[in-house]
């Protein structure tokens, strides 16, 4: 298949307006004749479902949670970017576009990113109108703060709970449409397959997580807004339920998977404390506005800290290395996430890490507390400091936080064109589950922006173009493809239950996660990746012979749910490794040790790798086929990213 982005021709700034005029419209009276399935109720899913219902379409919204409000968007802390230029500090749509393209290390599609920057301003207006309580100045106007990878202050926030407030806004809009009867809500329903009829997405198969019942649902189009796959690493900042199953099922039905190796490692997470650890907790990037990152200057001093002989607050200024400020004077502690993470790893690799494991660096607030007050700091970051203390039993007002990088976000995802349509006609992907806007590295406060942009302002236009070309005839689940997909889902459940092995789904997941983190994490090399590929194949084989799940499929069975998700991660993991092996360059979050500058920065190869790698599934245990979408840059000059 020839991958065409369908990005409109013409000047960058006019593309979206032109496209909106050129897309076909469904007349208001006909809209009620179309059904749309939206899977996932996070920022992208809830906003899409609500907006489509407002337009008049009949929407069925699915979530595996007990309520749409639990989606993991809720945990986003720092903020949402928008090119409002309220601060008069030189921001513009073009600057947000430029920062995002550059921050993504020139591996994103220009037209998509520009559109994202354009609609960012509408997001803020929409959310304010919904009653989202953003932070405000004393004059009553909206407040902003700075985030990594930008030199302007364009991040809107609600203390350290921006994701929560934005999601509750989208949830309220969704709830209103449920009340109007325009959205039918299916909670505790997990997508287990996509139904394709005559080459077009026509429905889904779900499992009711309370009763175990397998159901089929038909619609004229399907939108996946099912989040990222960071949990392939087992330990990540993602919520425990986050998984790749919906996207992976779509992939196996024909949707290409793009740039799977582009994963984001967030620099400021609370370090691992023990083998029992079930997830990692993020400390918002916004803390890097005021916190200073450092390690002891010498290995000897670091050793004394690790043994508990000296406390960090007793280490003299001269004995500290504020390594981000030293190496990147222009951006200092606010360098992008990939740069900050890699440098923290380098410090620990040099033996200058802190904490009992040596796998941590300090994030220190002593200066800002001295400069302002503990109260002022609490006003800004109170909930984060409390959370840190609950988890670590240490008071960050008195001693520096210990932080370490952790898997946080996945830039890769289902390949989509400018309309956010996957390679399966009628199947759309929005939010983190698509690959579209962040290239090889996502800037802070851009995930919320993208989720809401896709859901409120892109999908409602682009899906109409597809529906207008689809007959408004009722769709049913009568086609044999539904029965076939349903039988496949049921057979897989039965197969997992029948194995009756000795290892739990969690044990397999941890084993996979360890391999992924070790060989396909912050730094990768060809040898390690090849080793990882063989290991993943071995684990996957063992899984299907030795996984242990008890009970039945006709009841609430959380181990069974977990097993299904782990099985899909075991396939995705290998594709991530293949993708990382194929990309013989370093860019953004993808750092191949063989390709670096003398200073240890990522070394891109624009001549050979300025493309999106879109993978096509062929058959189980067969190599996937690589398709390339060449990236064309007409408006930015490709340079080596410098934050010095």
């Amino acid at each position, binding site marked *: 298949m020839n991958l065409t982005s369908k990005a409109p021709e013409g000047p960058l700034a006019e593309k979206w307006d032109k496209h909106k005029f050129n897309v076909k419209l469904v007349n208001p009276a006909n809209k009620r004749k179309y059904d749309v399935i939206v899977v996932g109720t996070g920022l992208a899913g809830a906003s899409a479902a*609500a*907006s489509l219902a*407002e337009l008049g379409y009949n929407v069925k919204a699915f979530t595996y*949670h*007990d*309520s749409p*409000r*639990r989606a993991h968007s*809720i*945990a986003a802390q720092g903020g949402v970017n928008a090119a409002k230029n*309220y601060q008069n500090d030189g921001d513009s749509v073009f600057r947000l576009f430029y920062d995002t393209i550059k921050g993504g290390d020139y591996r994103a599609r220009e037209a998509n990113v520009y559109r994202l920057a354009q609609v960012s301003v*509408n997001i*803020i*207006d929409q*959310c*304010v*109108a919904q*009653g989202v*309580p*953003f932070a*405000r*100045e*004393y*004059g*009553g*106007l*909206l407040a902003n703060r700075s985030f990594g990878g930008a030199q302007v202050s364009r991040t809107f926030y*609600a203390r350290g709970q921006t994701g929560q407030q934005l999601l509750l806004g989208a949830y*309220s*809009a969704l*709830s*209103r449409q*449920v009340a109007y009867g325009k959205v039918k809500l299916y*909670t505790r329903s997990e997508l287990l397959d996509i139904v394709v009829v005559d080459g077009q997405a026509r429905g889904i198969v779900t499992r009711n997580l*309370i009763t175990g019942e397998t159901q089929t649902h038909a619609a004229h189009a399907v939108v996946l807004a099912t989040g990222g796959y960071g949990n392939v690493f087992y330990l990540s900042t993602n*919520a425990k*339920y986050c998984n790749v199953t919906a996207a992976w099922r779509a992939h196996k039905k024909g949707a290409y998977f793009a740039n799977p190796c582009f994963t984001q490692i967030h620099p400021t997470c609370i370090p*691992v*404390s*023990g083998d*029992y650890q*079930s*997830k990692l*907790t*993020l400390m918002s990037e916004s803390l890097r506005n005021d916190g200073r990152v450092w390690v002891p200057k010498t290995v000897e001093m670091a050793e004394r800290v690790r043994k508990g002989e000296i406390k960090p607050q007793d280490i003299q200024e001269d004995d500290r290395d504020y390594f981000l400020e030293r190496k990147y004077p222009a951006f200092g502690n606010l360098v992008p996430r990939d740069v900050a993470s890699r440098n923290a790893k380098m410090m620990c690799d040099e033996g200058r890490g802190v904490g009992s*494991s040596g796998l941590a660096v300090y994030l220190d607030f002593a200066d800002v507390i001295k400069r302002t007050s503990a109260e002022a700091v609490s006003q800004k970051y109170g909930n984060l400091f409390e*959370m840190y203390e*609950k*988890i670590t*039993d*240490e008071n960050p007002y008195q001693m520096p936080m210990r932080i370490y990088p952790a898997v946080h976000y996945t830039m890769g995802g289902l390949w989509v064109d400018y309309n956010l349509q996957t390679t399966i006609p009628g199947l759309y992907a929005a939010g983190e589950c698509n690959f579209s806007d962040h290239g090889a590295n996502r800037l802070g406060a851009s995930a919320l922006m993208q989720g809401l942009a896709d859901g*409120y302002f892109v999908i*409602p236009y682009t899906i109409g173009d597809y529906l207008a070309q689809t007959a408004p005839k009722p769709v049913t689940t009568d086609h044999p493809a539904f029965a076939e997909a349903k039988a496949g889902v049921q057979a897989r459940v039965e197969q997992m239950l029948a194995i009756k092995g*000795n290892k*739990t789904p969690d*044990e397999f997941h941890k084993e996979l996660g360890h391999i992924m983190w070790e060989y396909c994490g912050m730094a990768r090399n060809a040898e390690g990746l090849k080793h990882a590929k063989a290991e993943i194949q071995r684990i996957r084989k063992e899984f299907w012979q030795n996984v242990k799940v008890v009970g039945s499929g006709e*009841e*609430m069975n*959380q*181990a069974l749910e977990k097993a299904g998700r782990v099985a899909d991660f075991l396939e995705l993991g290998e594709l991530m490794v293949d993708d990382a092996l194929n990309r013989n360059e370093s860019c953004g979050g993808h750092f191949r040790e063989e390709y670096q500058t003398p200073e240890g920065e990522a070394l891109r190869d624009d001549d050979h790798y300025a493309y999106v790698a879109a993978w096509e599934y062929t058959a189980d245990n067969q190599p996937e086929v690589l398709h390339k979408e060449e990236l064309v840059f007409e408006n930015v000059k490709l340079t080596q990213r410098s934050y010095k």
Partner: protein
Amino acid sequence: MAGSNPNAKPMNLTLKVWRQPNRQTEGQMVDYQVKDISPDMSFLEMLDVLNEDLLHQGQDPVAFDHDCREGICGSCDLFINGRSHGPEKGTTTCQLHMRKFSDGDTITIEPWRANAFPVNKDLSVDRSAFDRIIQAGGYVSVNTGGAPDGNEIPIPKDIADRAFEAATCIGCGACVAACKNASAMLFVSAKVSQLALLPQGQVERQTRVENMVAQMDIEGFGACSNIGSCAAECPVGISLENIAILNREFLTAKAASNNLA
């Protein structure tokens, strides 16, 4: 790898856990032993240990709701030693750590107990009643598109901050579980207050409170008798003041001559 407190000794505990196969079947308390629990574990990680043990023994693991494990999604909902989310104030179950318990302790773990929250299985309950209350009016009726510029609606900082405080409710249901009447007043009042405080919420202010309160009654939540256990046990500190605001909003709406709903 040692945690933040390398001197803390692992603990052995007895758990008394509510087991119930499904909504239709009666449940009972069952005793379990867990060993070598690190004080740095979260409460849910301790349950993970129990569940891995049970699965290895071929027994059905204990079902419980959880997701973000950062105290924000509101999924986790355990009634621990007779208290919503356990002994630590202002903390969800997922953020409760085992250092708050001692070696040899017996810990009782139950689901939320309320007619409006039927048990799905074991410790998992159905809280869709909360969704239906929000659907009854917990929103500002604006469609996507056409919103005025964000700065055209200036809001005094203290009002915005108070609205934010109310808006931080995570919808976990601890307030209902803590209340002897299983009242949902704190949950409802948090949303009513947020929107009553903000200019955006004024247009539908009266119908909103009436519809939400009516739905709350339909769902079978109890009445409020001003004890305040809800606010005392709320993991995110939603203030009892919101209930006063809710009462005032409700009476104002009922008394209003222009309210035709």
